[in-house]
């Protein structure tokens, strides 16, 4: 329940009630579980486990009734903002509406209660879903083959770079050691490149917000394995010289990796293939509406051009008449995880694609881009756009105009929470000072965009009149601004039995 009034003459009864942890509600001897009785003759433990070291004391798990656990998580849920509650303009994250039918269908017993190693003949329904999704994603990206193996975007990046590595190693062993990455890129790009064993070379951005083609040409060479690129890029701008960019890489025998995080802008409008990309990952938890789960699970489908198929990670489904079978590349880089993929999310993504259809997907992209441009047109008078072009599905502005009032991007972000919105992505991309990165998606209404613009307007006003309110924001959340510095300096990461004593 929300509070709307606090001046009650006496202390607010719940003022100091922070969330009680499960551990703090625990009482010895209480149970929440119910388990079958044993219908086999029980043997003494030491007869079954001779010489095996057993636990000397039980794990310090909380002891609660089921109902107490339900209450705990209900209260936690109420302290969590989500797309189901309101606008989530988190740039680069594509927080669109997650259709309820997707969850309902992915939760059917017939999908959830399947062991990954049961005979393939007993999972033909799931195989059919995966095969159809592979085909759809191949068509959407223009790639020749798609592996649904990776668990997320970054997982796909690692897989994709290892594919590229395997390809080059088979041709020019030890030659290509560098991956080029724009300075606007998401952190996972350089991190993945490093994990794949590459040296990361940063490519600057030109004054249009495009990758600096001149600089790029200087940087490519026989040592270049690949360029990683997001397009639209993380400034929300379409790389206007994209074909020149990819050609420039191909000219030196390097490949081009497409980070599909921003694919929502161009569904059915343009495809990585025609832009010249060789390897693509798609974040199904962004563009294809699978819910993000507060931090995952996602799914990061990986598509490649035909000549890279032999190297693909994991397995994929092949259809042979009425039969489905699993297959893998002859020179596969191997597995990136134990089993096939994040199947429950794959089902959701296919339901989404089937319910949208080709026309619906393009409509989604166009609407996302229209929404972003509309919102940008409102916001442009408040904050300076990083690059003054029409944007794709998101845009980046700088809050540095508020610097003289001592207000930073984070203050604007925190104050937005008080207005009932989540905050945009902040301080990313790194080349824009005090960046606010706003992505409205196609599932927001004009009324919401207008209200969000109004809130930003009011906040800019507050920055002039009551800057302290912003610096101390948020004020309407379960807790006030949390001290992240102390958290990092003196990390307390677990509740321990000594806490029980307190």
């Amino acid at each position: 329940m929300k509070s709307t009034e606090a001046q009650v003459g006496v202390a607010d009864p719940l003022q100091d009630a922070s969330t009680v942890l499960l551990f703090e509600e625990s009482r010895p001897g209480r149970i929440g579980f119910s388990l079958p009785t044993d219908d086999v003759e029980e043997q003494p433990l030491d007869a079954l486990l001779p010489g095996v070291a057993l636990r000397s004391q039980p794990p310090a798990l909380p002891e609660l009734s089921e109902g107490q656990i339900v209450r705990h998580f209900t209260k936690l849920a109420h302290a969590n903002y989500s797309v189901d509650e309101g606008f989530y303009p988190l740039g680069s994250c594509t927080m669109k509406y997650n259709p309820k039918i997707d969850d309902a269908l992915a939760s059917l017993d017939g999908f959830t209660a399947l062991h990954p190693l049961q005979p393939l003949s007993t999972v033909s329904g799931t195989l059919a879903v995966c095969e159809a999704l592979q085909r759809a994603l191949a068509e959407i990206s223009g790639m020749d083959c798609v592996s649904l193996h990776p668990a997320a975007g970054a997982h796909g990046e690692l897989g994709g770079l290892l594919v590229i590595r395997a390809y080059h190693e088979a041709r020019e062993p030890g030659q290509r050691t560098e991956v080029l990455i724009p300075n606007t890129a998401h952190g996972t790009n350089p991190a993945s490149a490093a994990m794949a064993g590459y040296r990361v070379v940063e490519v600057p951005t030109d004054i249009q917000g495009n990758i600096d083609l001149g600089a790029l040409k200087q940087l490519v060479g026989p040592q270049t394995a690949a360029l990683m690129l997001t397009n639209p890029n993380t400034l929300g701008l379409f790389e206007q010289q994209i074909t020149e960019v990819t050609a420039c890489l191909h000219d030196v025998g390097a490949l081009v990796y497409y980070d599909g995080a921003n694919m929502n802008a161009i569904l059915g409008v343009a495809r990585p293939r025609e832009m010249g990309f060789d390897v693509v990952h798609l974040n199904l938890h962004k563009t294809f509406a699978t819910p993000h789960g507060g931090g995952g699970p996602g799914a990061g489908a990986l598509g490649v051009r035909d000549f890279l198929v032999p190297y693909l990670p994991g397995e994929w489904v092949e259809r042979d008449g009425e039969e489905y079978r699993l297959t893998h590349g002859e020179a596969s880089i191997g597995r990136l995880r134990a089993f096939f993929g994040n199947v429950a999310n794959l089902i959701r993504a296919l339901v989404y694609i089937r319910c949208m259809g080709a026309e619906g997907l393009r409509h989604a992209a166009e609407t996302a881009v229209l929404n972003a441009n509309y919102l940008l047109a409102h916001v442009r008078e408040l904050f300076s756009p990083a690059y003054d072009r029409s944007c794709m599905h998101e845009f980046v502005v700088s809050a540095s105009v508020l610097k003289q009032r001592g207000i930073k991007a984070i203050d604007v972000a925190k104050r937005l929470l008080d207005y009932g919105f989540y905050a945009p992505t902040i301080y990313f991309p790194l080349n824009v000072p005090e960046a606010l990165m706003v992505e409205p998606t196609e599932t927001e209404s004009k009324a919401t965009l207008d209200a969000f613009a109004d809130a930003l307007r009011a906040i800019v006003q507050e920055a002039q009149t009551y800057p302290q309110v912003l610096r101390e924001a948020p004020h309407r959340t379960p807790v006030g601004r949390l001290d992240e510095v102390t958290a990092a300096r003196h990390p307390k990461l677990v509740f321990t039995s000594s806490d029980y004593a307190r």
Partner: protein
Amino acid sequence: MTHPWIPMTETEKREMLTFLHLQDTTQLYRDVPEDVQLQRPLSLPPALSEAEASRLFRQHAAANLNTLQASCFLGAGAYDHFVPAICDWVTSRGEFLTAYTPYQAEASQGVLTAIFEYQSMIATLCGCAIANASMYDGASACAEALLLAVAHTGRAKVLVSQALHPHYLQTLRTYLAGQSIEVETLPQQKDGRTSMQALQQQISEDVAAVCLAQPNFYGAIETIAPFAQAAHQAGALFVTTAYPIALGLLQPPGEAGADVVVGEGQPLGCHLNWGGPYVGFFAAQQPFLRRLPGRIVGETQDGQGRRGYVLTMQTREQHIRRERATSNICTNETLLTLANAAYLAWMGPQGLRRVAELSLQKAHYTARQLVAAGFHLPYEAPFFNEFVVDLRCPAAPVVEKLAERGILAGVPLSTFDPQRTTQLLIAVTEQRTRSEIDTLVEGLKEVCLQ
């Protein structure tokens, strides 16, 4: 067009275009070079209504043989433990399900608090000081643990038990290949365990980590303390994977000397889902705090001294440290950590012990019945709830045959190793009844021994 998931009306569209001085939406794409623009509609099957999708996907689901219909004796890294209703309830709450990674802590206390509780539970379960907020799955967690050891020791070789899950072995090879780290395996002894003798021969000052699975892939319970000691003596870290249900009974690896304990969290309240999403747990001892991959939640306070939780130690992570991050992981498996936390709270210490006991007892009953029926168990080491049986005939066709009767009899080891044609890996959870077990044994007898 209009679509139920897109609220913009035609009128609003026109208003917005007018506001932007545009004629139509194609103009929004003026930055997209013509030759890159797709000149045709995507070739996808026609759009379905919700009702049609609902029927179609129900048909797909019904085409599968699910483990609620069949008797499931499959393990090998994914287990048919009971998923309490409360776990599905937690993960289907929209506030958790449809939130992003909690970048704005004040508006995301729900998931942050839950992750803190999850970290605490995983740490106590593994006997470790700390834990992170999840990895993609057990296999990738294991790979990342080895990368941690490599980074920590500055050495470029790992010794890994041959009795690790073959998929884990493959995964860590993939992960480690990028950085050209050498992977050497420790052979399995005749009794099923990893050879300690081999370790003594293979360990050296250039080894970053020694890695075992507990229990190992073939079900054998490893005696891990000596491995830990030997690893530490050589200045290497000791890493184990662990089956979390078994930790209700077995000594936590962290107490036996493991520096990092990783594993698959699926058995803790997550559906089998034909392999994913699963969730890797990652627990470690205090010294490795700043080398942990992935998200970590820590406790802190607000200006009024109220307790709260935040993502912390982010300087390890890719969005700050970029190519020098401890890992590239970003989106992880948070929602499943909530299922894990709900499961562990529901079980409590008593329940977790009990589910472990039940699985143990029923597995050993199964083994006894199989031996009584004339089957041979190749390994003598103690096992928890999973073991290998030699069918003396090719296992894969047997499994196919029993599947037709609604028995998912086990994993034929030929899937992983063509030499092991006649071996079947059988796992038994608390869910299997005596009569299901008897039916399995009867079935195997009938199909194999006649």
